[in-house]
């Protein structure tokens, strides 16, 4: 973790009142930026990450040495073209890549805060990140964008800070976390909490972590990110490095081996308690309820241009839930575009090489940016 020193972060001194009632202050928020802020300061895009993402959206993540989570979309000449735009991405509070989270060392005990960390919400995450814009002296963003939990943050951001962003791109998300999604998150949390190493969340990161529980949580979640058709085409009933069934419980099938691998690499980069806190924040997300059952009210008088995208094979955040956002925006005459992209890659589509998706965003952003500038002249 020698690269930890290179990590950009700000200390937010201002008190942030959390939805749970507790207050936090003097806490770190880690972030990364790509591209350059232009003189007019009108080319900034704030990107929000999903459940297991972090601030390293593009290039090589200096901690994990792997490609950034949105490397297909963010970079020079890509959808979010960093030759043109200044892309900002922060690690959410509750996360484990340098921002204030359950893994943060409590100076009093010299141990991770663990489950003494307050329960946070999507609203809290967004409010914390707003401080970064003040710090970077960005008065108005060109765009806010994100998929999945990142999309929820987009919706929360535009409702909390109306007209702070000219364009909003919520992708493969929902305005209200469904029972099915809460159920899957609970499955993951139970896997972690039933690992004897979890110790009510007060495990010491340096010794034994609830890795087994976290790996199972990841395996279960990973299935929900893919589509049945995608799995069938990629793995089918193919066997893993063997010519026949072994009549045991080793990974006979490629899909088993694949999931085990996904679980095992995940525990190297993610904190189990962060997983609990962030999934909880997603479950608590209900923007419709926040606005008294009328989602349109969340976007009242908005001048932001919305572009909502869903995927045909995404059954976790299905088109119908994305369309509910479109309907709420149309009900108040907001400027909204919507398309459902055809793909068999499931919910994960937004992170993958889906050319239709990537090119449509790229063209939309570039044209909209020049349209807005032309109108200004």
């Amino acid at each position, binding site marked *: 973790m020698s690269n930890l020193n290179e990590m950009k972060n700000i200390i937010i001194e201002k008190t942030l009142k959390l939805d749970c009632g507790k207050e936090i202050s003097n806490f770190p928020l880690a972030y990364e930026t790509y591209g350059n802020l232009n003189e007019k300061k009108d080319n900034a895009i704030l990107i929000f990450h999903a459940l297991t993402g972090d601030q390293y959206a593009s290039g090589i993540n200096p901690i994990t040495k792997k490609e950034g989570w949105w490397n297909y979309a963010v970079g020079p000449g890509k959808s979010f073209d960093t030759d043109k735009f200044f892309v900002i991405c922060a690690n959410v509070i509750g996360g484990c890549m340098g921002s204030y989270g359950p893994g943060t060392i409590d100076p009093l005990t010299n141990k991770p805060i663990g489950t003494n960390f307050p329960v946070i919400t999507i609203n809290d995450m967004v409010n914390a990140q707003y401080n970064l814009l003040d710090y970077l002296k960005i008065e108005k963003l060109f765009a806010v964008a994100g998929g999945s939990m990142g999309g929820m943050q987009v919706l929360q951001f535009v409702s909390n800070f109306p007209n702070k962003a000219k364009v909003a791109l919520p992708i493969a998300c929902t305005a209200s976390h469904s029972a099915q999604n809460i159920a899957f998150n609970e499955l993951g949390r139970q896997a972690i909490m039933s690992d004897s190493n979890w110790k009510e969340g007060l495990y010491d990161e340096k010794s034994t972590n609830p890795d087994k529980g976290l790996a199972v949580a990841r395996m279960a979640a990973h299935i929900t990110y893919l589509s049945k058709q995608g799995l069938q085409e990629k793995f089918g009933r193919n066997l893993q490095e063997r010519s026949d069934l072994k009549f045991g419980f080793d990974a006979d099938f490629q899909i088993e081996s694949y999931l085990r691998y996904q679980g095992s690499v995940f525990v190297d980069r993610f904190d189990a308690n962060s997983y609990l806190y962030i999934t909880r924040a997603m479950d608590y997300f209900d923007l419709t309820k926040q606005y008294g059952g009328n989602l349109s009210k969340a976007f009242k008088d908005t001048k932001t241009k919305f572009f909502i995208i869903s995927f045909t094979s995404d059954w976790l955040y299905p088109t119908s839930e994305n369309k509910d956002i*479109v309907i709420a925006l149309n009900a108040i005459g907001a400027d909204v575009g919507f398309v459902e992209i055809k793909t068999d890659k499931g919910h994960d589509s937004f992170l993958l090489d889906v050319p239709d998706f990537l090119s449509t965003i790229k063209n*939309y952003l570039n044209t909209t940016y020049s349209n807005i500038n032309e109108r200004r002249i």
Partner: protein
Amino acid sequence: MKEEFKVISKFIEEKSRVLDVGCGDGILMEYLLKNKVVDVRGLEISKEKVKKCLSKGLAVIEGDAENDLKQFPDLSFDIVILSQTLQAFMSPENVIENLLRVGKKVIVTIPNFGHWKVRLDLLLKGEMPVTKNLPYQWYNTPNLHMCTIQDFYNFCNNKRVNIYKSISLNGEKISNITTSNLKYKNLISELGIFLLEK
């Protein structure tokens, strides 16, 4: 069909809120944005065409007029446009009803099945007409409910829909349709353009 767009554009006042139902590649939307100060939205059923529109930065949503017009509140647009799409719906009647609910005024354009070439085709050949404007065979046409300008007039009368203006388009020739020249215009028009009010 530049002439069609010109006629439509003349019907639209500056600073109007416009919805283009079945906006296709967004050519009419672009034409309006270029020539008028309007706030224009689009609804389109084809994913490919929606992607093209969004790539051009147009506010277009993927959807089907027979199901997705519901989400727009009453009278939420000054003008709703339906260009050469009416004949493709399962229920043109319901669509027109919804257009008139959503828009203060509605522009409908229809390819005229009463044009003399169409009539002649059926009369002489005894085959379903295939023309420049109606290039499909009976077995692959998306046009489920073809009508003539006369039919559309009758429909509006029966439904008590006010035809505010009606224009005939024959090649590049633009002319008014009136009750006295209706029979003739129904014979020579390739396209009928109607401005409707409830």
